[in-house]
């Protein structure tokens, strides 16, 4: 589904990603861990097409196509979803209206008929229930006045609405209490299937107790320096990153 080869990216002339190799197949869940400032969020942003970052070298193939040539919205319409670490508030734009437009674009790209107003309403209620999000929030402006937990649930709600092929969840667990974490994780697990894939970017083992990854990668100084199975996360939790970092020669 996704093949990343030797990806380099910079912001304001400073190189953040320094040669990432990474591959995701349908049905898989990957976790990317690593110390602060190692480039985890940048990697997700570059895959989503954030124009703040400049790709200076490397290739990214998504479903057999060159991802790096696509606009932000083309990537989204083709099924790439980014769950934001800090979801933005959009005053004056209602959740319902925003989702109506987003779902219409995604369905058009999937070759599906648009939903009627009634179907849309029902669909929104169903998906809101997946993450125990109060359906009343649909009448409010996007993320405005939402609590920290509601914002994160709202990201997973939008993921459920858009039925992505590849979900990149950037620190979705940060700032969540244990109940909200469980709800968010349950939502993500319910959306897992053989045809989609999930990349979790996280600091903590905690999330991986609830969403069990197939692979765990350590990103350090802009490169993936170590990969393993789910047991790697436990080892990192216990022993930290030092044993890896000390081994790592630039």
């Amino acid at each position: 589904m996704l093949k990343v080869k030797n990806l380099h990216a910079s912001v304001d002339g400073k190189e953040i990603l320094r040669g990432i190799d990474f591959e995701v197949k349908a049905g898989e869940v990957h976790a990317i861990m690593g110390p602060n400032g190692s480039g985890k969020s940048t990697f997700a942003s570059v895959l989503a097409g954030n124009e703040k970052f400049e790709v200076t070298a490397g290739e990214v193939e998504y479903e057999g196509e060159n991802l790096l040539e696509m606009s932000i919205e083309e990537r989204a319409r083709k099924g790439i979803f980014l769950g934001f670490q800090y979801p933005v508030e959009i005053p004056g734009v209602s959740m319902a209206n925003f989702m109506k437009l987003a779902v219409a674009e995604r369905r058009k790209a999937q070759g599906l008929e648009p939903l009627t107003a009634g179907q849309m309403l029902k669909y929104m209620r169903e998906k809101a229930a997946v993450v125990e999000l109060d359906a009343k929030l649909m009448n409010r402006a996007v993320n405005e006045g939402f609590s920290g937990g509601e914002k994160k649930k709202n990201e997973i709600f939008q993921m459920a609405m858009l039925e992505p092929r590849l979900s990149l969840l950037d620190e979705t667990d940060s700032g969540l209490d244990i109940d909200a974490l469980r709800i968010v994780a349950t939502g993500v697990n319910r959306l897992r299937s053989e045809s989609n894939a999930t990349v979790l970017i996280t600091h903590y083992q905690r999330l991986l107790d609830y969403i069990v990854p197939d692979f765990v990668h350590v990103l350090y100084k802009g490169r993936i320096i170590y990969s393993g199975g789910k047991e790697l996360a436990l080892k990192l939790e216990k022993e930290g990153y030092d044993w890896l970092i000390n081994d790592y020669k630039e």
Partner: protein
Amino acid sequence: MEQKTRKVVLRGAGCGECGGCYEVAAGESLELYQLCGEDDHKVRVTLAEGARAKLLFVASTSGSVSYDYRVELNGAGAEAELWGLFAARERGVAKVHTDMRHNVADCRSNQQVRGVADDEGYGLFEGLVYVAPDAQRTEAYQQSRNVVLSPAARIQTLPQLEIYADDVKCSHGATVGQMNEEQIYYMRQRGLSEEDARKLQLGGFIRQVLDRVDDEPLREEMERLLFPAE
């Protein structure tokens, strides 16, 4: 106590050089809506004891339009809210001048005016809050928020407070900015085109004032004035 409410709608260039003078008697209330795209318009409102006024204007032009609102709070307990939107397109000029005068104690006022300038448009907001020496326990708020949509568009905002009483709650804020790129990115990541995202965002900026219009046909008419058919 049942309040007597007068509702006035002033439309188009036809509302003339003077939008009129309105005296709101003790305990009564006025709702005034004004929407114009051309010419200069003056509105004077005087509030007696316990009177209320809700004033809301929309100005949108590719030519020239100006509004001049003066509100005199002359009786204790009077309350005025002033909501406004102005938009200047092409080489249009939209000017708004407000003068909120707290002449006596125990009155409240709230001004919320938003401006948009596109192309080579120019917008100006001058808003004065005056609090007389005896007007203790005044509450007066004023906010001017503005966005410029193109490099050649300009907006100036000049909020002024003239306060001669010492026991007052007053605040004002003014911003001129561009559209928020983080919001655009977020919407595009959900599949909206850049154009749709910008439209939605601008609609949101304007809606925060238009939501104060309960009359739906009137609100739609205001939207059409702000977004003329392309």
